[in-house]
Structure formats: structure tokens, C-alpha cells
């Protein structure tokens, strides 16, 4: 495609609508309508080429209409995701395929069958975000370079048609052009405009850098989106949970055994109901209690030595983990997220000889770490035949355990009856205590629960997220660009001498009232008549 040579000598790329140097309108040059000043009438790839597939894709993604469409669709999709709770918020262990129907009726069923219960992780939502990102990149490239070149090559002296077709335009008869220009210049300088002069004409320009705001913020968004997608790169991200009982040490999951954490003590505190300051407010609320503190006093260890041989744990650091005060180490952080108070930790049993009605000893079982057998004071031994930390009768009707958490412990103890020389068994649990014998003979030894000990358990979350630096950089760039484009506006005022007339034209990318205020001051100071806002005279052109 051939380039366009303007009468002022400037060579403009194919597709240019307004000469980059003198501003002469190159298309519709006999029109009197206001010039479309977006991107200075520079040639944009998307507006110029429309042949190949690539041109079409480029044109599609660079269109602001398409961009807005993508934003709105994302917005509506995001709304839909909040109608019912997402899958990740429904109670753990519930089957989503029944939960949504039961909880929300037929609408819930529909919601589930569309897959909206996992909307934000769905392929089409991700695709939407990706399309948004693509659109931002292409639209920015399409506009930035032409705009940059046009603003760089602009000349002070502008073509009369350029001036006439600005939104703000006026002419004034003056006595001495030089003096008027001089006065205008002073006032413009005072208002911190940068002034360029050429052949007695003026270009006053201010805050051009604000024009780059949108491009800077779009770059920030892209960096942020790329950062967010790094989450899927292996090794960037770890998320796991661990329960640690008081006094115990657990390996920190996700660290490949590199770290261990010990829970020295878990503390929960609540606000005093009679606190004079908060008493009324707490009574007025329907919450049962107001927690004031959750804290785990944690110690971090690293194993040293060879696994299985002489490995020992060496303390690295310690920290009181609270909500809002996680424990940072290496790339990881441990957060206080959950707790369980008064979990059973130890049960003490007394053993009685039914023949003599005498107590023959007692023993304590650590519920999280039971021994195989316990010696009684009379020299006998109790063996643990079976241990069910969380006792249930399973589907086959056989005693079993739901998990390893001692919420409902039950045992089968085994002892040798010296009289018969045979093993005898007793089943004992919470509110359960009976002999397990093949015949109806009662056992010689009976057990009774004489004491329990409890323990607090802390729930910690382990996180590593190496994408965060990218997000911070992206977010910072975005905010800088946003402020740059929002809090400053690019203003230009052209003053041109024509015999004993002075022509004034002006353009800004936003906040026209403020620009008019500037001009009205210049006009007053330099004794010019106030230029007109030509949109008041002309219908809004649909561009």
C-alpha cells in the first residue's frame, strides 16, 4: 500500500486520516464536521487491513465493542456464580449431585446440571479470561504505536481545517498579534503548559504522559493475568492442611519432608461477656460467643541425619501463629485456620478381679499412640487386641473405625485367665462394656474407665505461592497506569496568528469543563474572545 504525502511534506502511512504533522484532514477534507481526534486520526492496523484471516482476528480483538462484550459476559458469568454457593463452599463430604437439589430445589438441580457449581474453574470461564487478555493486548498494540508516532511528529503550525474542526475553536480580531501571543504565553506558562513556538504560532501542551495511562494499566493487567496462570506450573504452588495435636510434631505436608512442625500449645480466648464496652453489643447479637484469639505456639524443625538411621529434628524457628499472623519460613507459610478443643487423648482403665472383688491395677492408654500391652501392678498383662479410634459398625455389620481421630474410641482388651489358661476378651468403649466370650462364662477380669485426658488440636494450612511477586508487580503497574490515566488529562491548546486575527483551538481527552476554564483564563488575560464549544452547535456525531 502506498504512503500518503501531505502538502506539508509529511509522509504518512497508508490509512492515515489526519496528517501526523500539520493535522490536515486527509479523508473527507471538505467536511465541516468535528474531527474524530481519537488516536489523532493515525493509521491503525485494525482499520486499514481487512484481508487475511489474521487481519480479521486482529480486527476482532482490537475492537472496543468486542472488548466491552467480553467484560460484560465475564461480569454476568461471575454474577451467576454467586446465586448458589460454589462447590468449594458446600459442607465437606457432601455429594454435590444431591446437595444442590436438596438444598435449593429444582433451580439447584438446574444450576448443578449446567456446571455452575464449579463456574470459576470451568474451561469456558478460563477461556473468557484468556480472550479478555488477548483483546487487551491486541487493542493496545493496535493503538499505542500509531498514537505515539502521531504525537511525536505533531507540528506546532496546524492546517486551518484541523483547527476549524476542533471541538473548541474561535477567532478573535486583535490589535497587535505579538502582544496577544505574549500575554497568552505567560498565562499558559503559569498554568504549567509546555509551550512550543513556530513562525509566531503556539502549541501549549500539558500532561501528554497521561495518554499512556491506559496502555500502562493494560500491561499491568496482562502481567497479573500471566502471574495468575503460573499457578498451574508445577512447583509454583502448594496448598495443604495439617492437624497437629498439642505436644505432637507432624511433618509439614507439601515440603517433601523438609520441615516438621510441633504444636506446643493451642490457645483460644473469648471476649468477656461482662466487658463494659462491648457487653450491650454482644447481647444484641445472636452470636453465642465472641472469640478474641486463636493461637498456636509452634516450633519448626528440620530433620538432620539419614532417614531411618539416626535422624533427629533440629529446631529452626518458633512463632506464635495467629489469624493475621502466619508463620513464614523458606517459601512457605503456615496459617491458623481451624481448631478442635478437648479431643480425647488418654483414657485410664481400672481392672478388677471378679473372684476377689479386688482391684488388680490400672493402666493409661495414649489414644493416639497406644502400646501393644500394659503391665498391671499384680504382674498380669493387658494386651490391646483391637483399637477403634472412631468406632462404628460398618456396612457389613463388623466393628470398625471411621478414621484415626479418637472421637469415639473403643477397644477389645485381652488378658490371660490364670484359672483356665485361656485368653479372655472384653469390649469397652464410651458407654459400652461387655465380655466377648464364645460361651456364657463371665470373664474373670472386668475393666472400668476411671479417667480421661483431653488435648487441643490445631488446624493449620500450608501455603506456598510463588506467583505472588508477579501479581504484586502486575497490580502495581496497573494501579500506576490507572492513576496516570485517571488523575491527569492530556490538554492541548493551539494559538495561531492569521494576519491580525488569532485562532484558538483546543483538545483534551477528558474533563472538557476544566480545559474550558483554562482557556477562559487565557482569553481574559490575552483579551481574546472566548472560543466556542462546537458540540453545543452540532449534534453528537456517532463515531
Amino acid at each position, binding site marked *: 500500500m502506498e504512503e500518503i504525502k501531505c502538502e506539508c511534506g509529511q509522509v504518512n502511512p497508508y490509512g492515515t486520516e489526519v496528517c501526523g504533522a500539520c493535522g490536515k484532514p486527509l479523508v473527507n477534507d471538505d467536511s465541516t464536521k468535528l474531527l474524530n481526534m481519537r488516536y489523532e486520526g493515525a493509521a491503525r492496523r485494525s482499520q486499514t487491513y481487512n484481508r487475511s484471516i489474521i487481519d480479521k482476528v486482529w480486527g476482532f480483538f482490537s475492537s472496543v465493542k468486542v472488548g466491552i462484550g467480553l467484560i460484560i459476559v465475564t461480569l454476568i458469568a461471575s454474577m451467576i456464580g454467586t446465586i448458589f454457593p460454589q462447590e*468449594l463452599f458446600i459442607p465437606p463430604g457432601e455429594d454435590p449431585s444431591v446437595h444442590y437439589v436438596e438444598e435449593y430445589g429444582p433451580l439447584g438441580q438446574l444450576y448443578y446440571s449446567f456446571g455452575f457449581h464449579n463456574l470459576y474453574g470451568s474451561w469456558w470461564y478460563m477461556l473468557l479470561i484468556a480472550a479478555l487478555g488477548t483483546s487487551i493486548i491486541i487493542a493496545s498494540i493496535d493503538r499505542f504505536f500509531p498514537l505515539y508516532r502521531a504525537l511525536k511528529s505533531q507540528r506546532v503550525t496546524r492546517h486551518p481545517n484541523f483547527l476549524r474542526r476542533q471541538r473548541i475553536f474561535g477567532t478573535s480580531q486583535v490589535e497587535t498579534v505579538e502582544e496577544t501571543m505574549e500575554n497568552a504565553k505567560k498565562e499558559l506558562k503559569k498554568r504549567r503548559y509546555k509551550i512550543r513556538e513556530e513562525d509566531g504560532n503556539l502549541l501549549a501542551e500539558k500532561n501528554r504522559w497521561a495518554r499512556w495511562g491506559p496502555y500502562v494499566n493494560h500491561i499491568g493487567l496482562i502481567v497479573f493475568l500471566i502471574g495468575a496462570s503460573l499457578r498451574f506450573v508445577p512447583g509454583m504452588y502448594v496448598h495443604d492442611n495439617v492437624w497437629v495435636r498439642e505436644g505432637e510434631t507432624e511433618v509439614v505436608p507439601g515440603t517433601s519432608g523438609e520441615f516438621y512442625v510441633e504444636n506446643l500449645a493451642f490457645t483460644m480466648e473469648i471476649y468477656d461477656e461482662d466487658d463494659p464496652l462491648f457487653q450491650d*453489643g454482644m447481647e444484641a447479637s445472636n452470636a453465642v460467643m465472641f472469640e478474641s484469639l*486463636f493461637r498456636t505456639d509452634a516450633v519448626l524443625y528440620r530433620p538432620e541425619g539419614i532417614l531411618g538411621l539416626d535422624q533427629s529434628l533440629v529446631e529452626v524457628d518458633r512463632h506464635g501463629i495467629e489469624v*493475621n499472623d502466619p508463620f513464614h519460613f523458606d517459601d512457605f507459610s503456615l496459617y491458623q485456620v481451624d481448631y478442635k478443643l478437648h479431643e480425647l487423648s488418654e483414657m485410664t482403665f481400672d481392672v478388677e478381679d471378679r473372684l476377689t472383688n479386688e482391684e488388680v491395677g490400672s493402666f493409661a492408654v495414649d489414644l493416639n499412640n497406644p502400646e501393644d500391652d500394659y503391665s498391671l501392678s499384680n504382674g498380669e498383662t493387658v494386651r490391646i487386641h483391637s483399637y477403634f479410634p472412631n468406632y462404628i459398625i460398618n456396612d457389613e455389620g463388623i466393628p470398625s473405625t471411621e478414621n484415626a481421630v479418637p472421637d469415639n474410641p473403643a477397644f477389645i482388651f485381652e488378658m490371660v485367665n490364670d484359672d483356665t489358661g485361656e485368653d479372655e476378651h472384653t469390649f469397652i468403649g464410651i458407654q459400652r462394656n461387655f465380655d466377648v466370650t464364645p460361651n456364657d462364662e463371665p470373664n474373670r477380669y472386668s475393666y472400668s474407665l476411671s479417667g480421661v485426658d483431653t488435648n487441643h488440636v490445631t488446624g493449620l494450612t500450608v*501455603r506456598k505461592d510463588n506467583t505472588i511477586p508477579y501479581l504484586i508487580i502486575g497490580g502495581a503497574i496497573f494501579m500506576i497506569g490507572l492513576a496516570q490515566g485517571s*488523575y491527569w488529562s492530556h490538554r492541548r491548546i493551539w494559538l495561531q496568528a492569521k494576519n491580525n486575527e488569532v485562532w484558538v483551538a483546543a483538545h483534551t481527552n477528558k474533563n472538557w469543563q476544566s480545559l474550558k476554564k483554562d482557556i477562559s483564563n487565557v482569553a481574559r488575560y490575552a483579551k481574546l474572545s472566548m472560543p466556542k464549544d462546537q458540540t453545543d452547535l452540532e449534534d453528537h456525531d456517532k463515531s
Partner: protein
Amino acid sequence: MAQLSMNLLTISFFFYLFATIFYAVALTGKKWRNRNREVTGNKWGNVGYIASIGGLLFSLGYFVTRWIEIGFAPVSNMFEYLTFFSITISLAFVLLYGMYRMNALGLFTMPVVMLMIGYASIFVTEYQPLQPALQSYWLEIHVLTTGLGQGILAVSFGAGLVQLLRMIDLKSKRMTKQTFGIEFVMYMIISLVAFILVTNSFNAFNYEATFSYVNEFDEQAEVQYKLPPIFGPNEGELLTPERMEPWIYMPVWVVSDDFNTVVWAFGTGLLLYVGIRLVTRRRIGALFQPLLKNVNPETMDEISYRAIAIGFPIFTLGGLVFAMIWAQVAWTRFWGWDPKEVWALITFLFYAAYLHFRLNRSWQGERSGWLAVIGFAIIMFNLIFVNLVIAGLHSYA
């Protein structure tokens, strides 16, 4: 001190009320023109401005005294957040009025401020302690910034509404999309007013009606109504003597007391709305139009846009950037698709769309006005529904 603090808030409410009246007087009185020969105001406008600054100072007095007494920024429950929101709206108004001096803006923004104080008053006003997740200086950084952003965005709604009332013909008998839209907005505002009045009246008499009912887990439970039960709970049985029997009992999947409240709000709102229309024989919007004859819609468009251009970055900083940083510290992840988070994102996307729409000149003017109104509707939806109905991590006690 607690009493002093609340008194300061009440005083500020009256200042805002007087400011509204002064602005209305200013709009009916003699006009001043500035150098561009645009109508700006007269001395009543200045009196209104002084009253709004007075209101702002008194409500700041409430805020500071409360902060000093409880020891953390008073923005940790609905009452506190809404009063803070009212403060940021009036702050934003004082700034923008300073720039543009448009009395019509005051006539519409000051009542929004009062509406927020009124709405706040139906929640628990006593001091409540901070739960562990809120015990952080990020509470101040995040909530104060977000609230400021939302306050500035609320002013864009005021300006947008003025612009629409100025531009749309509400006298003609024919119903159009525009007249319907305006009247719908009016109806919503009236419903909020009705809701505040009804709730406060029944609260004043300590109205309570307790039901036993069968909840969604098939268990017997109790629920307390603060408004007369038109709609009872699932298999409900009234326990409080001398209370009206519900007309209908709702199925189990409806949160019946919330539903009852919603019906009360929109029902009494409808009565009020129809009442006003019957008495005045005009559209509600048309009642304001004589006051707005001299308003330049282009200036209102610019104020509305300007408020968004100023408020959007602040909202983004507080509601997304600071929010993410705090969520990373307190909740272990910067983003978790909690409903409140998603609605902050929706607000962000909406105003981003607004800014891109405006790149096209045909979207400036009336269409922008509608967008400013919708944007505020999203913010209010977030504040009312998402907080109280769609419970998530954020929902207040």
C-alpha cells in the same frame, strides 16, 4: 462518650437535612452565572454548602470519638460500615461541589447520605468486639479505602440521576423505557425509605414474634420475626401470644423471615409510591424537574464521569488490591471466589466497562447517566443482599 458519639451522628443527620432544603431553595431562587455564563448558584447554594460541610464535620466527630473509644476503626459491622459510607459520600460531595458548584448535585446527594444513616440505624448500633480475622491494621487500610472509593462512586449516581431527570421527558403520558427506568429507580429509593421507617417503628415497640418450625435439616428450630409475619416459616407454629397469624407458611427452602422483610419493604414502598402519584397526579421523577430546568446536562455528565474517574482507582485499590493482600494474610489466599469478593470484581468490571463505553461519544450523555445509576445499584446490591442474604466469609454478625 458512646452517647456523645451517637448524638454527633444525629446532629449531622439534621445538617444534611437542612443542606438538602437549602439546595432546593437555591434551585428555585434567583440565579448566578459564572464567567462562562453558566448558571451556578446563589447565596442559598452557599448556605447549603456550609450545612453539608457542617454535617460532614459532625459525622467525622462521631467517627473519631467512636474510634477512640473502641480502639479500632469503627467499620466492623453493618451499622458502622453504612455510617462510614455516608461519611465518604458527603466527603466526596463536598469535594466535587467545590469543583463544580452545582446545587442540583446537593439536592440529590445529601438525601443519599441521609438514606445511608437511616439504613444503618436498623442494625445493632452498640459496640461489638473484633473477631480474630479482623484484628489487623489491614482492616483500616482496606475498608477505609474501599469505602472512600464507593462514596465517590455514589456521587456519580447523584449526578447521573440529575442528568437523566433533566434530559428525559417525564410529562408525556406515554410510558417509554426511560420513564419506566426513572420511576423504577424512584420506587427502589422509596422502598428503602419505607423499609427504614417500618423497621424502626416496629423496633421502637420491641416487636417480636417467635415461631417454632422445621428447618432444612428436618429438625425443630426457632426463628424470631422483627416485623409482623405475613409469611410464616415451614410448618411454623406461633409461640409469642397476641401476634398475627401468617397468611401463608413458606416451603422449607425459603428463608422465610428474610422473605417476609423483603415483602414488607417492597409492599410498603409500593403503597407509598402509589400514594404519592395519586396525590400529585404526576410521575415521581417529574416532581423534581421544575427544580432542574437550568441545569446543564453536559456539566452533570462530566461530574458523573469525573466522580467515576476519581473513585474507580480508589475503589480498585481498596476493594481489590488491599483486599487481596489482606486475604493472603488472614485467609491464606489472596482470592477465593467468596461472594463478596466476586461482587467487588463485578463492580470493578462494571466500571471498567463504563469507561470503555465512554470512549465512544454516543455513549456519553444519557446512556452514561443510566450506567452511573446501574453502577450504584450494584454497590447497593453488594451492601444489602450479598452481606445479608448470600452469606460468605464476609457476612457480618
